[in-house]
Structures are given as structure tokens and as C-alpha cells.
């Protein structure tokens, strides 16, 4: 079943064409990893998927709702799409528990006590239940990112988007975040991950997408894409990073 359907997507920042013509379908339960050099448009593409960037052409359908249609209530679509940022973006004035329960309670998805219980369960899943009453400032980068994942999961989204979730972390903390993401993969979550962790992509992805210069250059199952790429550009990129 198709959850995300992207059709001829175009995006420019002023004169700069960042996405030229992107087509992609994501099925339920699929894990997609997007790789590519910096400036290739992969983060911008991910941000288009939940409407954080407006688009200049084409269509993005999430469960048949077209994000590019102005009558679409984007905030309601987003309740169904969790997002994890490179810089975590936890709310510094709220405790870990409040960070996680804010959206479900404000949007009347859960009562306060239900949301708190859900927060406890999620924190247990990411291994941080003892931090529930702490403020983000007192957590390490890896811990903050794990809380951010729990926060995104609190709304029970159908899809999770990850925008370079480990790029801002010290190397010794990358593992704990990838570990949590691996758990989600095992639970069957639909995920779109922009990443530089090639090993992780090879391990978890159903499909890997290589983007360069605003296009999807190549997509394939991980072993094929990493070991026998069809395109010279893919090969050149992989030679540099592997």
C-alpha cells in the first residue's frame, strides 16, 4: 500500500533550483534511506514531505491527501508524520515529559495521564525513563536525540522522517541513536531517512536512493546500489565515502 507518492516535484530557492524533478513512492512498512553529497537536495526533499518547505511544482500525496493543494489542512497531515531533526530541536523550556506530551495533549489525542503513560513507555523504549523530569539542557546530544525520537512517536505517526539524525552527534553517541532507529525498523515503522551512515543504510534499508544535483540518480536495494551501482556519479560518490 502506497503511503507517500511524489510526482514531478520541483523546488527552488530564488534562482537556485534545488529539486528538479523528483518521483518516488513509499509503501507501508518500507524503510528508505536517502544518500548523496551535501547540496544534492536530500534534506530539502525530506522537508517537503511534511510541508516544512513549500514546493514550486509537482504533487506530494500522503495517504491520498495532496500537500500542494491549498485546501489541505497541513497540520492534520503532519500529526501522522513524525520528524526527527539533525539539531534535535527539543523545547528547552519544557521537561522531557512535557516535550513528549505537549502535542498529544494540546491536540486532544490523549488525556494528560494517558499521554504521561505513553511518554513513560516511549522513554523506556529509548532507554531514558529516568530522565522524564529533566530539562533538555541536562542531557547529552545522544540522549536529546533519543528524546526527540520519543517525542515524534508520541502522536503515533504512520511515517517517520529522519533528517541526518546522527550528524550533529559526537561519534560515541551515534550508536545509541541508530540502535533506537533499528528498533523502529524491527517494529515495521515506515521510515524515510536522510543519512551519511552508509553501514546503517545497508543494514536496514529496503531501498537506498542516491540523489545528486536535484535529481534521484539511482535507486535500488542496498546490496545492488552499494556494490554494483549503475551510474558513474553513484560510483564516484561511494568511492569518496566508503
Amino acid at each position, binding site marked *: 500500500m502506497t503511503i507517500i507518492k511524489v510526482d514531478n516535484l520541483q523546488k527552488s530557492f530564488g534562482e537556485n533550483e534545488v529539486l528538479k524533478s523528483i518521483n518516488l513512492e513509499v509503501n507501508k512498512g518500507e524503510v528508505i534511506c536517502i544518500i548523496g553529497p551535501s547540496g544534492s537536495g536530500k534534506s530539502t526533499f525530506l522537508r517537503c514531505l*511534511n*510541508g*516544512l518547505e513549500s514546493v514550486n511544482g509537482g504533487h506530494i500525496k500522503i495517504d491520498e491527501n495532496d500537500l500542494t493543494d491549498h485546501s489541505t489542512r497541513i*497540520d*492534520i*497531515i*503532519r*500529526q*501522522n*508524520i*513524525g*520528524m526527527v*531533526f539533525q*539539531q534535535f*530541536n*527539543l*523545547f*528547552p*523550556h519544557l521537561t522531557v515529559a512535557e516535550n513528549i506530551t*505537549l*502535542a498529544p495533549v*494540546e*491536540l486532544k489525542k490523549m488525556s494528560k495521564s494517558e499521554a504521561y503513560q505513553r511518554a513513560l513507555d516511549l522513554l523506556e523504549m529509548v532507554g531514558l525513563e529516568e530522565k522524564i523530569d529533566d530539562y533538555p539542557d541536562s542531557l547529552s546530544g545522544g540522549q536529546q536525540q533519543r528524546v*526527540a525520537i520519543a*517525542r*515524534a512517536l508520541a*502522536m503515533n505517526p504512520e511515517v517517520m522522517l529522519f533528517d541526518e539524525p546522527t550528524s550533529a552527534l559526537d561519534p560515541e553517541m551515534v550508536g545509541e541513536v541508530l540502535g533506537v532507529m533499528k528498533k523502529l525498523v524491527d517494529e515495521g515503522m515506515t521510515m524515510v531517512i536522510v543519512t551519511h551512515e552508509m553501514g546503517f543504510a545497508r543494514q536496514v534499508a529496503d531501498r537506498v536512493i542516491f540523489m545528486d544535483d536535484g535529481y534521484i540518480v539511482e535507486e535500488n536495494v542496498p546490496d545492488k546500489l552499494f556494490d554494483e551501482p549503475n551510474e558513474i556519479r553513484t560510483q564516484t560518490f561511494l568511492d569518496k565515502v566508503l
Partner: protein
Amino acid sequence: MSIYKKMVKRFGILFFILGFLLNRGTEVSAQEKVYIIGTDTTYAPFEYVDEEGDFVGIDMDLLEAIAEDQGFEYELRILGFNAAVQALESNQVDGVIAGMSITDERKEAFDFTDPYYSSGSQFAVLEDSEVDSLEDLEGKIVAVKTGTTGFDVATELSEEYGFTLNVFEDSVNMYEDMQVGNSVAVVEDYPVMLYAHSTGRIRLKFIGEQQAVADNGLAVNKGENQELLQMFNDGLANLRASGEYEEIIARYLGEEALEEENKNQNIIVQFINNLEPLMEGLWQTIWLSFVSFFIALIFGVIIGLMRTSDVSLLNILAQIYIDIMRGSPLIVLAFFIYFGIPQMTGLKFNANIAGIITLSLNATAYIAEIVRGGIQAVNKGQVEAGKSLGLTNSITMRRIILPQASKIAMPSLINQFVITLKDTSILSVIGIVELTQTGKIIIARTYQSGSIWLIIGAMYIILITVLTKLSNRLEKEL
């Protein structure tokens, strides 16, 4: 409690306060006409605040006696001479009594009562001055008070005798200017000078003759309040017949008034002697700043939000408002609201309301900019994190942006409050007797500007220091 309920509650308090203030101005007028009479703040012996803190003088005693004789009621507005005349023109007051000379020019705009006193403008120098005649004033500076007959006289004679003018709003400033040596002479109505000289407040030497001797009368707008004129004239005639008129004049200019008063009391004695008016002035300053700032905070947040809005119309409107308010001096705004709007529209405010409107309008613009700055200083990632959770714009604003923005903005807001508090002193120009105006009035009586301004300054500093320390502590707890 939802934000809407909170807003309703807050606006409710606001309207309650406004309603209370508006009521105070109008509650008496229901029964029978109470005449609003504007007067000068200090123009001894015509009007001034005496040692006991009572507002007295020839004008005041005459008005009181005549009102009693004729059985009408009046309410005083102590505005300063120019402000009183402007208030009359804009129908904020029914009449003005302020040792006002009856001139042909003024008769075009106003109707006057029968004269109750006659006097002219007099040049004077300090008793020990070397200047003995108008001729000696060549190349010197003469202090005058704007809008007075003395000003006209001095302007006319300045070319003939070759002196230049320093123009002041208040008699006190005029004398101070001479005492510190900036100007060598002052020009003022003879009885005013005679009073100041005789009571030993300032020792003067009169030079030249009285100029442009004219009659003093109470003024009303042309064609209006004729019954007030009639009653004043009838009452004045009765007082003259009964001898009470002579008593009143003698009270201020006769031998009994000419006692040397205590001079150069030390600062502590000055403070204790004037404790009551000082505290009243302080209280006026405090409540005006708090009410104005509270109102400005509400509208400042609204306009600040408009400034950060994606809707360009709201954004532009907010920008225009901010540009206008930042571009206009507070004193101009105060004059426009208190004198200009009534004259243009007939809509009247009492001085406190006008003062609060002035301060709030002004502070709203600055608070809006502080709010905008605070909102824009919140990391962009915070908005994106909120949006990505499916939060609406208003929830994102209320739960994520504003709490962080208000923390960022707090020091600037405290600073703005201090500015607003100090700006209340500007409201003295529309006759509000706040702390600064209180100082002016006390000095007008005592001529002790050094110690009184020290006291007033110290009171501001203590008040502001206490309030900022309190709010800094509050800020830390947030």
C-alpha cells in the same frame, strides 16, 4: 484556563479601570452645571501652593468668594498658563482665571469679565545687579515667560534696547535663569514680582516703568458660558461693595504678606515639610506608569505578533503604527491627544485618561518591537519542531514560541517599564501633578530648586532601583 478566557479576564480589568477613571471626571455633572476653571500652576500672588500645601492666591480667593456669593460650583484644573488657554480653546475647561491680561488680540477669541485687577509688565534685575535701566540691557539676555504680556512687551523692546530673549514655560525657571547668571533681567507682571520681592523669595531691583498696563479678567470662549461671566461680574461688584475685595488683595500684597520667610532650609527639612505632596506625586507617577504599561503590554504583544505575521496587511499596519509612534515625540503626542483631539472632534478626555492614552500608545510601539525581536530570536528549529508534530500555528506560538520569546524579551521589557515610568514626568505639560510637577510647584513656592530637585531625583532613583531589583528577581524565578 484557555487563553481566551484569560484575555477576557484581563480586558475586563482594563475596562474596569478605564470606566473608573472616566467616571471620576463626570460623576458630578449630572445634577447641575459645575464650571471647570483652568488656571496656572504657579503665578503668585494670583495662584500658587502655600506652605500648608493649599492652592491659594488672589485669583483663587476671588473665585471662591464670588462663587459663594453667586451660588455656583466650580472645579479647578491646575494646568499651567499656556495649557489652560489651550484647554479653553479646545473646550476642556469653561473658563480660565490666571492673572490673564485683557488684550485686543485675546478678545478676538475670548470674552472677558470686568477687570478684577490692573497691572503691567515690569523689568527687574537682581538687587545687587549693575544694571539700572533698560538701556543697560544692551547685549544682555532677558528671561521671559512664553505666552505672557511680558513676552510681547520684551519682544517689542528687544530691538530698541538690543537685548535677546530666553523663553521659559514657568516663572520659576525664568528666575532661576537669572539667579544662575544666564540672563540678567526678567520681565513679568508687576504684582507677581512685587509678591516675590516682598516676601523675600528673591530680592529684585525694578528698572523702568510698568509697560503695557492692562486689566486682568477671567476668560471664557467667545459667545459661550455668558452666565458665568455675568455671575462673576455681579459677584465681583458685591465683593467690592462689601470691602471683601480689598481684604483679599491686602492678604497677598499688603503689609501683612510682606514677612520674610524662612530661606535655605536644609534638604531634610524640605523633604519633611513637603512630604505629603511629594508622596501624592510619587503615587500618581507609580499608578500612571503601571496602568499605562499594562495596557501597552497587551497591545504591544498584539502588534508585535502582527509584525511577525505572514499576513502582509497586518504586518504593514503594525509597521505603520510603530513608525508613527516612534517618530513622534511624547510631548507632541500628549498635546495632540489632550488639546488637539478635543478641538478637532469635540471629544474630551480628563487629563489622567489623556496621559494614560499617551503613554500607552507610545510604549505599545516599543513593546511591539521588543516582542517582535523576542519572537524572531527564538531558534527557527523550534517552530519547525512544533509544526512537524502537527501543532497549529496558534498552539506553536502560545506553547513554544511565546514562553521562550518572553524570557528573551524580559530585560528589554523591564527597561521599557523604567522608560515609561520616567516618561510620566512629561505628562506634567497637560497638568497632571505627578512627581516632577510636584517638584515644580514646591519650587515655585520655596525657590529652593537645588534641594527639591535633589529630593525628586533621589525619589525617582530609589523607586526605579527598587522596581528593577524586584523584577530582576521575578525574572530569575520564571
